[in-house]
């Protein structure tokens, strides 16, 4: 990323966004981080793919949970 862009408070790198996407599974993000996440997602081609992987994992764990709960 252009180092100048880093000055904007809502700019995040893919690595930071990846960590936020994972963190969301276990805690509510502060409002600034939520906005920064959406801003990044709107401009990035790679991070939305990662976000879909996390969604798939969430669905997978839901299936696993019902299989591991005798349903």
């Amino acid at each position, binding site marked *: 990323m252009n180092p100048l862009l880093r000055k904007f408070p809502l700019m995040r790198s*893919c*690595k930071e966004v990846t*960590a936020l996407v994972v963190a969301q599974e276990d805690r509510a993000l502060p409002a600034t981080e939520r906005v920064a996440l959406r801003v990044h997602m709107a401009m990035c081609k*790679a991070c939305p793919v990662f976000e879909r992987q*996390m969604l798939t994992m969430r669905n*997978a764990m839901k299936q*696993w949970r019902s299989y591991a709960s005798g349903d």
Partner: protein
Amino acid sequence: MSATDFEQQLVAQRGYLMRFARLQLRNDAWAEDAVSETLLAALAKPQAFEGRSQLKTWLVGILKHKIIDTLRQRQREVLLDSGSEDDSFDPLEHMAFKADGHFAQRPSDWGNPEQDLNSRQFMAVLDACNEKLPPMQARLFLMREWLELSSDEICKELGLTATNLYVQLHRARLRLRECLELNWFASR
């Protein structure tokens, strides 16, 4: 249903219960105890089962409570890591990022695998990936995903700080992602 029929049906579920007790507790002796206590509790009040359709579901419900008791009582040991490098390794550092923090390579598209997720083969891979997590990470991750406790509840039960919990869950989730990528999505 006679008393002995009921007993036999309970004993038949032992293997199933042991599997998940082991996966969650990562300690065979604790798992044995939790499962035995579950079966004893079920034996003591067969009337509680009346009218329920699934014996397995009822037993898993009891087992989950017994397991939460064990985790609470053993909190110090539950939170002990094995001391191997695996425990402190952050999988994020292993992903394809450039020096400036941007993806060097786009993550792979896992598609929309609804059918897959229901399959027996996928469940086997997911089981294996859960088993491969380091013990402390696995316990905390499954407290979220199997016992369905909130992060706050986990911290309270174990006397753990939120920051510590989030670090462990972050590692566990990324590890599981990598394991699924390697063993399922990349090899389809």
